């Protein structure tokens, strides 16, 4: 399908039409924060944003969701999402994160029905990124400001219009459904736009050999050094679009027992604590190592890709400016024999 285009001033009309047919989520600016919120007549989307403070992961993996409800005799029907949704304006990094989450939650042997229904019922309309910020490093992890992975439709902002390209069948259906709002000739110079955007990413950390360098440095004093400043909070994980680790917690209220799946974080000391008191990762350094290993070593080992999309949120929001780009470089530069002799 050829690219089509829509004038920027027609976007509100498009979103209005979409919100009549779908549950629509788009970036909005409220209380000084940009976040994906439900768009209805009372709320306007904004296109004037670099990226949202918190990733759109929450729309697919809610911070807490009930995975079963039991009344003491029988289980109630699973509360699977059955509305059709559109998420408009996700950046390519965040869309690619969905492709990475699919690798974990939607496998041949096992599927998380809650995640999978959310994915299936959601059309992801991505907006390519023309203005990466200084903390972005998507190009270092095999993505880019114009990556179309995980998106159903990718749009690119050019002059006074958006050029749109359907990526998946779901995207094609979406473009067909709203075709009358688009004009057929949407030929923007995507290559040139992508190049310009990529050139704006000034700091390009070298992540090519990160798996090998981590392999060689599991036992290494560098972890102790790097983790010293880490507070062990979950800010980086909770705003990360690819961090998916979760906890299952029981909840009991009158007559109802629920199992709740909540976000969790490998940086928390209790994450791996056994009932016996034994903890395989008893200190911060082991936990920070796990976090990096999971993203840049284990993920690649299991799925052939890094579990990071380079959105830079952790760089922006770390309370102590522990910069993952720098950490990877420091690990790679560390002498790789253990210092114990």
């Amino acid at each position: 399908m050829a690219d089509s285009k829509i004038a920027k001033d027609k976007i509100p009309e498009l979103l209005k039409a979409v919100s009549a047919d779908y549950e629509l989520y788009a970036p909005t600016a409220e209380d000084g924060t940009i976040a994906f919120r439900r768009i209805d007549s009372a709320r306007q989307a904004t296109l004037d944003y670099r990226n949202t403070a918190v990733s759109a992961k929450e729309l697919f993996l809610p911070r807490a969701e009930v995975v079963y409800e039991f009344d003491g005799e029988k289980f109630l029907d699973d509360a699977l999402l059955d509305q059709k949704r559109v998420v408009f304006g996700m950046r390519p990094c965040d869309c690619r994160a969905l492709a990475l989450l699919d690798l974990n939650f939607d496998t041949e042997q096992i599927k998380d029905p809650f995640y999978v229904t959310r994915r299936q019922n959601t059309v992801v309309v991505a907006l390519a990124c023309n203005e990466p910020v200084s903390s972005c490093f998507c190009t270092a992890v095999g993505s880019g400001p114009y990556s179309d992975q995980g998106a159903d439709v990718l749009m690119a902002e050019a002059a006074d219009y958006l050029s749109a390209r359907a990526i998946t069948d779901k995207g094609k259906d979406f473009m067909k459904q709203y075709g009358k709002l688009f004009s057929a000739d949407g030929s923007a110079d995507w290559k040139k736009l992508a190049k310009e955007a990529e050139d704006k990413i000034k700091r390009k950390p070298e992540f090519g050999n990160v798996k090998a360098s981590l392999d060689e440095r599991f036992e290494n004093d560098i972890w102790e050094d790097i983790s010293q400043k880490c507070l062990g909070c979950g800010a980086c994980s909770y705003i990360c679009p690819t961090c998916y680790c979760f906890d299952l917690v029981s909840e009991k209220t009158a007559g109802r027992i629920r199992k709740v799946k909540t976000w969790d974080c490998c940086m928390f000391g209790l994450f791996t604590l056994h009932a016996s008191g034994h903890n395989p990762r008893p200190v911060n350094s082991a936990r920070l190592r796990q976090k990096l290993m999971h993203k840049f070593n284990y993920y690649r080992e299991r799925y052939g890709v890094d579990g990071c999309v380079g959105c830079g949120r952790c760089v922006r929001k770390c309370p102590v400016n522990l910069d993952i780009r720098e950490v990877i470089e420091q690990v790679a530069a560390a002498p790789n024999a253990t210092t114990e002799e």
Partner: protein
Amino acid sequence: MPQRKNEIAMRNPYRPILTEIEKITIENEARDLKTFRLAFCHAESADNFRYECGQFAELTIFGVGECPIGIASSPTDRGYLEFTVKRYPDGLVTNALHNCCVGTRIGVRGPLGNCFPTDRMEGSNVVIVGGGFAFTTLRSTIRYILHEKNRGRFEKVTLVYGARSPGELLYKQELERWQGRDDIETHITVDKGDETWTGKEGFVPAVLKEVAPNPDNAIALVCGPPIMLKFTLPVLTELGFGSGEIITSLENRMKCGIGLCGRCNIGSKYVCKDGPVFTYEQVQALPAEM
């Protein structure tokens, strides 16, 4: 019933099946080890729950929580499941479970994880080494092997099992029955006996060395506390067992039990999904984070 617009034939992997505690056996003197026999509440779940030796299940105390426990009954035991659970003072679920009485509803999610390689063990001598309460899935395996339908598939079976004291040995009546059989060689030992104890005294590795099972055409299954493993594995290696022929079972804190929640990994391997059964060779390749 209203039809979902987007019906997806997906099993909810977080939802347990219902069972009921049928029998509780206190296993040790310290009374912190109990065996729970669970009966399926629905006939179809009894048919669907097909497991193998070495697998585990997540047990749910409704409203309290869930914990992963190795299946102690044998696949040849039909109609019920058995789990031997140690109560830890800090363990939310194990405490609640120990407070349960016969008839309590327990949720079971499973069977989970991989299993002991009974196919590979076929036609081989089997050496089973267990210590303390890490004997549950080994018990399952012994019951399976000794079952009349299966015994012919395996060659010589040697068991070395030890506990701290006579009162801490699991499955005492069963051990006695096994000692009376001639198709399994049993060596039961305790670290320190009491006035009634007439059996062996000594640590498992030392007894194993003395028994010196022949490594030819043999597979060793070893489960026990870390300290026992640390000293037992070198003994087996010394006896000539290859690290691919030594098989053990690991544990870690788990939540989902199906490789999704990202908690129980050692290196890139999930204990819940890629394990809990690993060969010594595989364990040696894992990073030291256990």
